[in-house]
């Protein structure tokens, strides 16, 4: 058993976290907190797509715009065409992926500043485009988006039902993302993020792999957008604006730690979503003060903790190891020895 755990420490850790998280609605009854938890999950998923693009050296400021494309596609399909949520969800994901393919094909050619600038403009123009199309409801948005149809005895009428639906979607998203990371595509992405030219010289098609990550990331954002639209039942273009939604998505990733692909966004989204609500309560619902506090927090985090909150864990692990070694003197065992005597040996013994 110990051997199994030490071999699969990360998945089993996530499983424990998942079960603990799934049990939360049993003792948190307030719909307000459930709503915050659902939004945390959506935000964490969006931040994961941001990190996914970051891995390949692309800083995308239009995550929220593609989230919006997914939400609008799903809303139009269900309100105007009368389709069920369970058909809208995959369809809107595909539509978002198609948009991402076309847009990415043009703007990924020249990564770096051009890509950042074009995605910024794209994010700002999304609001203008949607606001000027009458069929999409203009700046007033689309309301009365129907809830998902019931499956068997599960009826989606309370926030707790949406909590579990969101949890399932988030788990699927995490599984998809980690499957990509551990496959050939993930290795190529890592190589590109490490050094694009080096990757190109050893035969990785940088453009194609970047396009793949862009399409996959945007499709996941579209999936979450579809869920969000049916959860909120009302969307308007300003929700998906660059100021402040994309900023927040980026901050979730950076606050948690952009080096941690899955756990970073989860921690960052959890911290900031609840912190924002706390600040809103403290400043008595003056939204501009909330945004100013968040902006100041962003600057403090990037200046003093640029690798995110989770890098504190590594720091404390090092500190702990240093303390166990006897404070820098040749007191205790060296880290390598500790590992050998405590971790590896029992495993071998069990195997034998």
């Amino acid at each position, binding site marked *: 058993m110990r051997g199994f755990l030490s071999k699969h420490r990360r998945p089993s850790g996530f499983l424990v976290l998942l079960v603990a998280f799934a049990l939360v609605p049993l003792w948190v009854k307030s719909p307000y907190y459930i709503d915050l938890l659902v939004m945390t999950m959506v935000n964490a998923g969006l931040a994961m797509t941001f990190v996914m693009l*970051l891995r390949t*050296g*692309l*800083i995308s*400021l239009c995550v929220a715009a593609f989230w919006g494309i997914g939400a609008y596609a799903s809303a139009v399909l269900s309100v105007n065409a009368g389709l069920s949520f369970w058909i809208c969800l995959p369809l809107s994901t595909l539509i978002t992926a198609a948009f991402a393919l076309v847009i990415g094909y*043009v*703007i990924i*050619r*020249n*990564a*770096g*500043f*051009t890509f*950042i*600038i*074009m995605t*910024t*403009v*794209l994010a*700002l*123009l999304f609001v*203008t*485009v949607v*606001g*000027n199309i009458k069929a999409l409801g203009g700046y007033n948005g689309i309301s009365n988006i129907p809830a998902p149809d019931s499956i068997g005895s599960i009826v989606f009428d309370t926030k707790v039902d949406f909590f579990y639906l969101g949890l399932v979607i988030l788990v699927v998203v995490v599984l998809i993302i980690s499957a990509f990371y551990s496959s050939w595509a993930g290795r190529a992405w890592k190589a590109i993020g490490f050094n*694009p030219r080096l990757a190109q010289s050893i035969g990785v098609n940088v453009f194609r792999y970047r396009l793949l990550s862009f399409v996959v990331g945007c499709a996941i954002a579209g999936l979450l957008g579809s869920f969000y639209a049916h959860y909120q039942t009302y969307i308007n273009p300003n929700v998906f604006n*660059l*100021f*402040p939604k994309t*900023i927040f998505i*980026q*901050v979730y990733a*950076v606050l948690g730690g*952009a080096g941690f692909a899955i756990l970073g966004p989860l921690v960052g989204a959890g911290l900031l979503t609840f912190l924002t609500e706390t600040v809103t309560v403290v400043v008595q619902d*003056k*939204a*501009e*003060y909330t*945004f*100013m506090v*968040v*902006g*100041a*927090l*962003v*600057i403090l985090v*990037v*200046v003093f903790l*640029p690798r995110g909150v989770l890098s504190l864990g590594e720091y404390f692990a090092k500190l702990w190891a240093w303390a166990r070694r006897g404070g820098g003197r040749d007191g205790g065992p060296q880290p390598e020895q500790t590992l050998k005597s405590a971790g590896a040996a029992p495993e071998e013994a069990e195997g034998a």
Partner: protein
Amino acid sequence: MSVILQLAFDGLTIGLIYVILAAGLVLILSVTEIFFVAYGMFFMWGAYAAWYCESGLGLSYPVAVLVAVAVTGVFGLLSYMLIFKRLQHMEGRFLVTVTGALGLSLILEKAVLPIFGTQPKSIPGIFTQAWRLGGVHIELKKLVLIGVGLLVTLVLFWIYEKTRVGRAMRAVSSNAEVAALHGIRPMWVYLLVMGLGCALAGLAGGLFAPAYNVHSGMGANVIANVLLMTMLGGMDSLLGAVVGGLVVGQVLSFGQYYFGQMSIVYLFLVIGVIIYFRPNGLLGHRTDLGV
């Protein structure tokens, strides 16, 4: 015919504002390599500062514009010294500088509301003379704007091309390490460029204020246009900024009249096609300005 002339005149006016803005942003982007999204907010702060000095403190309009330039310039210097100086040399500097700039723009955008209120502002009674010339309505304040815009552009070109400071900027822009080997302190050049660029944004805001309205959404509105201009002209070319500003000014002036708000979207599509074939813009040179 008179409609077309009127639109061309208005396009020239707003185009010169865009030229000043794009020139400042091109300087910041090419020299410091910081993606400075907060730039639009400096423009807004310049406009608000000019409005406050004129209406609140009762200063004369030229002094108010100078105060706006000073305020935004000092803001720019402070933001570099306090934030971006540390971020610029960090590991993964593109991500941290973009994040820092986004945080700064969030603060600057929202700080306007509690300080100045949500009502749109205007500066009435400045250069109110107007003439009709062949069916074109020409206001003195727009003429002043055109004159100042041309003057500033020329001075900027002179500084950038002819003086030692300009040569230092170009040297750091092309390669900061080699420039340091030749005795140029990149830090001072970065500081200077941030101050100058933000002061230009403030100047544009100050000139913008009497001719148009001042409101809290203008920073976010203008940044999309300015970024499009830098893409069109090239991110490291001052001449490209001038061309981009004038072209975008005309296109938006005519586009607003014939297509409405969607004109900027069509412009984006056209610029997307241009970027596809010329990734560095029309007049840019560098290919390695990237992550």
